[in-house]
Every structure is written in C-alpha cells, then in structure tokens.
C-alpha cells in the first residue's frame, strides 16, 4: 500500500454522451484523477442498483454514474430512469451507513470532456476526505450504523449535490 490513500471509483459511462466525453477528455490531454475505473454501458438507464452495490461490495470507495443531459438521452429518457433509481438507491445506502456522496450522478454530453474530468476530480477529492468505505466493516459488521467518526461530526460537511 502506498502512503497516501487513493480512493477507487467505478464509473458507469453511457456509450453516447459520457463515454465520448471521457474519450474527448483524453484526446484533449486533460489531466484528471486516475482513480475512476470505467465501465461502458449503452445507456445510463442500464445501471441497475445491483451493479452499484456490487461495485461497493467489491471494494470500490464510490460509484459515479454519468449519462447524457436530461432531454438529450440517445434513448430518449434512459437517464431519467436512472435518476429515479439513483435517488432511491442513495437513500438506501445511507440506511446501510454508507455516506451519500459515495454515489454520484452527473450529466456530460459528448462535447463536455472537461465536465466529466472535473466531476471525477471532485469526487476523488471528496472520497479522499471520507476515507475508505470498507464495506465489510461499515455495512456488514457495522450493521448499518455510521462509524464513530461520522457520528462525532469529525468529517467535513456533505458536499452540495451534483445534479
């Protein structure tokens, strides 16, 4: 393990907007946190809660879902379907004792490489502050109770919502 803690983010990128935004960020040589590990899906609407939970359980510190802007979805409104699930899922995660910011949703059109890069940077910094998720301790052994640190209010204020 290295000295500084590097959070790991699983990023679900939709094929038409946000994956292309990520491609563009690379093509434009925009440097951003290398902490996001990408999965391409055809539409953000494909991201089912199971996939998010799986990622967190397998050791990810956070999950980023990126889709087309509302009204611009390649599949008309798949992104809105995912937005609905996201709201619900976030609530459920917080009941598990998982901080809300560990799941984020953003919109990035194919021309917004910088928006995607900035979102990854922001989320990485936020997770760095939160520290590792340690699903096995927090959720399974912690039985849904927040860690002592959180309860004592040592962690920083919650970030403002992304969407």
């Amino acid at each position, binding site marked *: *393990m290295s000295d500084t803690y*590097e959070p*790991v983010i*699983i990023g679900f990128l939709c094929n*038409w*907007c946000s*994956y*292309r935004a*990520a*491609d563009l*960020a*690379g*093509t434009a*040589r*925009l*440097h*951003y946190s*290398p*902490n996001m*590990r*990408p*999965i*391409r*899906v*055809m*539409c953000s*609407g*494909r*991201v*089912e809660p*199971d*996939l998010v939970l*799986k*990622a967190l359980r*397998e*050791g*990810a510190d956070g999950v980023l879902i990126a889709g*087309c802007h509302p*009204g*611009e979805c*390649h*599949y*008309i*409104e*798949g992104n809105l*379907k*995912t937005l609905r*699930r996201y709201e619900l899922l976030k609530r459920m995660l917080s009941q598990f004792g998982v901080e809300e910011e560990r799941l984020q949703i953003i919109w990035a*059109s*194919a*021309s*917004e490489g910088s928006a995607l*890069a900035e979102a990854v940077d922001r989320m990485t910094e936020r997770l760095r502050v939160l520290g590792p998720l*340690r*699903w*096995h*301790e927090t959720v399974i052994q912690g039985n849904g109770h927040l860690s002592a640190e959180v309860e004592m209010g040592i962690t920083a204020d919650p970030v403002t919502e992304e969407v």
Partner: protein
Amino acid sequence: MSEKVGVYICHCGTNIAGTVDVEAVAQWASEQPRVAIARDYKFMCSSLGQDLIEADIKEFGLTRVVVAACSPNMHEKTFRGACERAGLNPFLFEMANIRELNSWTTNNRRIATQKAKAQIMGAIERVIYHQPLEPIPVTINPNTLVLGGGIAGITAALELANGGHHVYLVERESSIGGHMAQWDKTFPTLDCAACILTPRMVEVGQHPNITLLTYSEVESVEGFLGNFKITVRKKARFVKEELCTGCAICEEKCPKKVLDEVFEAGLSNRKAIYLPFPQAVPKYPVIDVENCTYFVRGKCKACQIMCPPGAIDFEQRDEILQIEVGNVILTTGYKTFDPNRIPQYGYGRLANVFTSVEFERMVNASGPTAGKILLRDRTHEPKSVAIIHCVGSRDENFNEYCSRVCCMYSLKFAHLVRERLPESEVYNFYIDVRAAGKRYEEFYHRVMKEGANFIRGRVAEVTDVARTLDEEGKLVVQVFDTLFGAQRRIPVDMVILSVGMEPRHDAREVGQLFGLGCDSSNFFIERHPKMDPVLTMVEGIFIAGACQGPMAIPETVAQAAAAAARVISFIGQGTIMMEPIKASINAEQCSGCRICNNLCPYKAIIYNEDQKASEVITALCQGCGTCVAACPSAAISGAHFTRQQLMSQIEGLLWDVREAELEHV
C-alpha cells in the same frame, strides 16, 4: 471454465507506452488465470498487429481476445474484424481503453499502470462471459428525407435525385432557397447569389424524383437506420396547389400590407397573401392568417374573388403525411445573431445602424431600394460607412466561436459601397481579418487597394452624442485602435453590423426529434470532427451545412454533397448489418408485471396475453438496457451487456482493491 484468452497491449507509439509500463502489464497479464498468451506490440491496429492476433487465435486456439489500446469508438471494429478473419466470433472480443481513458489523462506512471491492469482484468473477466452474436440484417429503404430547403438541402436533394433515388424535401417556409436567396453577391467571386441559386431551385421543383413539401414541418420520427417513419405536417396555404398557376393576381389585389420581416428583413412590405420572393419555388403563394383581413375580421376574400382559376380555399386544413425513408439529411441551417443583444451598438435605437442582412437586401437590385445604398430616410446616400466585424462572434459574452463568413462578407460590403458610391469612405472595424479560403486573401487585397480603411479593434460603442463639430449629426464609432495604440472616434453616416451565425432557435428540439445531440452552442454534433463530419451519432441521420457550425456556401455545398454520397452508399448496400445488441425476455422467468412495457422508450416490449409474459420486438429494440435494469424478476437479458458480464467486469476492475481489502479484514 476452459476459455483461452489472448491479451494484447498496444504501445500506440509512445501514446500509451509513454505513461503505462506496457511490458510489465503484458508480463503480469500472461500470469493471470485463463490467459493463454499476452503480448505487447507497438501498434496493434497495424496490419502486422492484427496478423499477430489472427495467428495466435489459430496457433493457440484462443477462444477470447482482449485488446488494451485506444477507445472502442476508434478501433473496436478493426479488432473484431481480425477475430472474424481467424474464425472467432467477433463478439468474443473486448477492448480495454487504456489510451483516452488512461494514459492521456495522467503523467503518473505507477497509477496509470495499475489502472491499466485493472481495466485489462475487467476486460478479461467480462470477455469470459461473452456470447457469440450474429449481426442483424436490415434492409435500407431507398427513399431519403432532406429537412431544410436552403442551399444545403437543395444540393443534397439534387445529388440523391440525380442518382435515381427518391427524396422528400421538407421546408418550413413557403419556398425553398433559404438564406442564400436573400443575398446579393457571393464572395469572393462576386457572382450574383440568385443567378447561381435559382436554376437549382427550379431543378428541384421540376425533378421527378423529388417530392417537395414546403410550408411543412416534421412532427415525429420513429424507427431506425433503413426504416424511419416520419410524420410531416403540411400546413394549410389556403391555396389549392393543383389549381394555382402562380399568376400572382391574388397578391396584387390583396388590400392588406404587412411588414416583411423575413425575406426583406423589415425593409419593405408584402401582402397578406404572398410569395416570399419572385423566384420562389414552388410558385404557390400562402395566406398569412395572422394578418389576412378575412381571417381577422371575417370579411374581404378579394383574392378568392379575383383568382382566375379559383384556387383560393379558405377552408383548407393542415395535412398530416406519413413518409417512410431509409436515411435523413438534416440541413436546417442557421439564424443570424440578433444585434439588439448588444445595446451599445445602437441597433433599433439609432436609425442608421443596419444589420448585414438589411444591407444585403438594400444592395440587391431586386431589393427594397432597387440596389441603392440609402440611409433610413430612403433619400440620402451615406458619405461614410462603418462596417463592424464580429458582432456577436468571438465574444465571450455571446458566442465564443468565429462565425467564419463575416470577414469575407464585410469585405464584400466594402467593395460594394465603394463601387456604388465611389466618393464615400468605408471603414472596416476588425479584430483579425480571417480570409482563409480559395482566393479570399486576394479579395482582401483587392478591397484594400480599392481604398477601404481598416481599423483594428473591437468597437466599444456607436453613439449619436457629438463631442466636436465634425461629429454633429453623425454616428460616432468609438474604438481602441490596437495598431495605433489609442482611442479613436470615427464619425460616419451609416453603420453596418456584421452579425454572426447562430443555430436555429429550435435546433435543440429538432435534434431531440431525431435523437441527436447538440454542442454547447446548440449546433448539431457530427460523429467525428475530422473523419466523419456529416454522419451523426444516430445511424442513418446525417447533417450538412450551417446546422453543424458556421460555414460559407462552398463548404455547405461540399458537405451536402458528401452527406448525399454517404446516403447513396447505404442505399447501394441494400442491406446492412446492425449490431445485435438487443434485449430478450425469458418467458419462463417473466412474472408478467409489465413494468418494462411502459419503460421502453421505443414501445418495443409488448405483453403476450397467451403466454402471460412480455416479449421484445427485436426490430424496434435499440439496446439501451433500461428494461434489463428495471426487471424485478431479472427475466430480461441485454445481449453483450448481460448482468453476468457487467458483474464480472466490476470484479475484474477491482481485483487489486478486493485483494487489499480481504487482507485488511
């Protein structure tokens, strides 16, 4: 599982190898379970790189292939082809994007290498569960919809029609011609716009392969490449096209005058029943119901009484037409920047500030002043004219982009002013003169030699408040001359604002209708800015002309012809193969809850009463996977994006973290 995976890591010259330790990654990959062979190579996409894969598939009996290289949007097809040539189903392949999504985004070699390993592990874990898929053949309907009848639409329609294919040309206004029909001369050749445009308009009107639907708008779009079903609303003209001879007696007899804000840019009047301009195609006039005395007050009918063939029909209703096409070319054009948004330039407040569109009409021999350059009072000629470049363009307050045509048409204006009024002074206020085009720079020099003045600087203000006697009764252009290094005030009689190009006000809505994205300025996005400039992200939908971005007539014509050529290529193929990424429902597992039925944006899932289960209409399914994610019984599977594949990819992507975490626990 006994799959044999081949893993190939591309150096991409130094693009990847400069940041990712490719040799170490290849060594590591070769040690992973199920990996039969792992190699790194300078350029995997080269024919030698592809040969390597093909040879390994045959020699080692590989059953799965992973290539870690650039974006799948770049070379997925290439490597699928290599697999196919070696007898492996192309869908038993997965790409890890370690260039765009990794090496190009960081300088940190350690983390980039670690991330590349994770990406490759994700791909290995995923590809194990890939299933062989067969592309789905789709027949291409040979008809094409061209939306927008400006020079782009006219060109595209004629190319297709001359190639023997049927075209529906849909235009919102009552005549085709678009903006070009308004212009006087075209730079840099100075040939008259109407002289080169109207013959092509007539050709469109008479072409047996073109169904011209003017005064019409697209209401809805269904389907996909090869098979689009388009609903078009043909608005009522209140003129029976089959009877109208285009004699224009109705227009002559109509007692109601209306300011013509569209074609004549508000400089003259038209009637309530009118042809937008004399050379309009088709030749049928249209009644403007908002201003027609009969529609407003219920009385008049002068046009109906006077019409010799009796073509006026006040009862006419909008028609809804269904057309079926295989491809669509969007040529919806642009609008000009509204200079009211820059109040300091005085447009609308100072009478003798004109837009470039107004000036084009004024200087046109068939325009409101019969080609005379006159002040707003319509009697006096200006003795001095200021032309302000970049109005609304190259300005972070409005549009950051360069509109690309304004420099050249401003130079053309300078030439025309000097030609019509040889005694006058002309001042061009510019930031840079962008004369990059064939014979453009030569034209710039010609205009300079003709005696036009050039002042470099963005104009701060146009005012009628005089500070000196010279400025009395004049418009004063205040500018910081960046070559002179000082503020200057230039008194003139007339100011022309060279307004830039913007997307149509409803570009975003039109885009949504066809499932297209717009960039941050609302111009349609092409599939690739260099390699695929006329296709969009939606297969079968092309764009050409200024709806894609500011461009002049030559580029517009070139793009329109290019889009037509691409469509002809699809038509020529007759049948194309579509990605088999579709959803399917396991009827035994389906509980019949029908949640998916309503979720599907394409109405591709129906409920089968007999089976008490839902089923997917494969032809309509676009493969988004929204239903797969929503099914509470997990009865729906999305080909190539199955739950198993994605779950395994997650495991692979987190292989190092999971190991560390387990140690921690």
